[in-house]
């Protein structure tokens, strides 16, 4: 098999690298990081989570929805969550926002609110259009995501491994909610694995 073909077949298998390097992949459970991330968010006092679904956030959304200590708001479009987070903070509640990179484009003008009002904002953005992407329509917004956020005044951090993600979220909750910062964490598509199709 030519090397390119082998790579394509690996990507299409939907497995992450950690799964294929495990000695006994059949016994491995789901990725542990969503549960760790959920616990980390709880421990940081976040009790409100707004989201537009993405496959990369699917497990975390389930955990949030099953958690009686968290309110989950499903949105019709991502910028709604920016407004909800500001309102929640006015009332003393910590709210975060989950979306994929295509949703960042929808948020731009709404981000005026946390930027001008110095409302804490923490967005967890799963990247599309940057790694083994099968859908070319995801590429333009994926390529524009980081620059768009920075242009409107939101700071960005990248996380390309699950360890980096947990570390970065832990640091960002402090910056956002104790330091009134507006932060987006861009979760690399390479880490999230290949979308099964």
């Amino acid at each position, binding site marked *: 098999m030519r090397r390119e073909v082998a790579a394509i077949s690996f990507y299409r298998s939907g497995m992450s690298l950690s799964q294929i390097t495990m000695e006994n992949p059949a016994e491995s459970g789901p990725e542990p990081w969503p549960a760790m991330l959920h616990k980390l968010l709880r421990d940081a006092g976040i009790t409100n989570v707004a989201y537009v679904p993405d496959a990369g956030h699917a497990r975390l959304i389930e955990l949030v929805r099953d958690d009686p200590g968290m309110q989950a708001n499903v949105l019709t479009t991502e910028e709604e969550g920016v407004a*909800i987070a500001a309102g929640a903070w*006015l009332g003393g509640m910590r709210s975060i926002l989950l979306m994929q990179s295509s949703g960042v484009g929808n948020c731009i*003008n709404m981000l005026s609110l946390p930027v001008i009002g110095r409302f804490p904002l923490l967005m967890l953005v799963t990247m599309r259009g940057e790694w083994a992407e099968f859908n070319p329509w995801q590429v333009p917004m994926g390529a524009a995501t980081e620059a768009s956020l920075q242009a409107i005044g939101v700071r960005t951090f990248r996380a390309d491994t699950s360890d980096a993600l947990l570390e970065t979220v832990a640091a960002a909750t402090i910056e956002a909610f104790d330091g009134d910062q507006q932060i987006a964490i861009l979760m690399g598509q390479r880490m999230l694995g290949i979308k099964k199709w």
Partner: protein
Amino acid sequence: MVAELDRRAAVAALLRQPGDLLVVSGLGSPSYDVHAQGDRDENYYLWGAMGSAALVGLGLAQARPDRTILVVTGDGEQLMGLGGLATIAIARPANLNIVVIDNGHFGETGMQTSHTGLGLQLERVAEACGFAECGRAARPEDVEKIRAGLRRKVGGPRLHVIQVKAENLPRSLPPRDAVHVKNRMRQHLGLQVG
């Protein structure tokens, strides 16, 4: 044909004896109307982020289920956040009231006719989304009914449209410093500031 309501008088009637109401106002005339009734720590005035008012209200309602929240916004502002009505209906906060001051026009930008001026009825949109109570007010006594019912729990959010004359009244400008207005509301609620 009923005489059309004056928007400032309608908002004055709505905010008579506001007590501990937490008020969020949408950009443009609704912010001026709310400010004209007296500046309060319990008010959060928006000057931008069009389409956000009702959703800021949702976040506040979820954070403070013990308080009654009133969003006062305009038809144009709410039209930009139509999807938000679906989100609010599903979230179902029982302490959230949305009042749309509907003049059928985009008043800030040259009085172009809006969708509501061309026939769209926002209370019917809200009803279709699943709001617990929806209505349209065109007379002073209808506005008084909305005011009297603000704290009544009906098991979910309410949206009322108050139909008003299209006119640009003298502006009553609320503070534009969004941090200051945020901090004083949080301080009022006993939260840490700064």
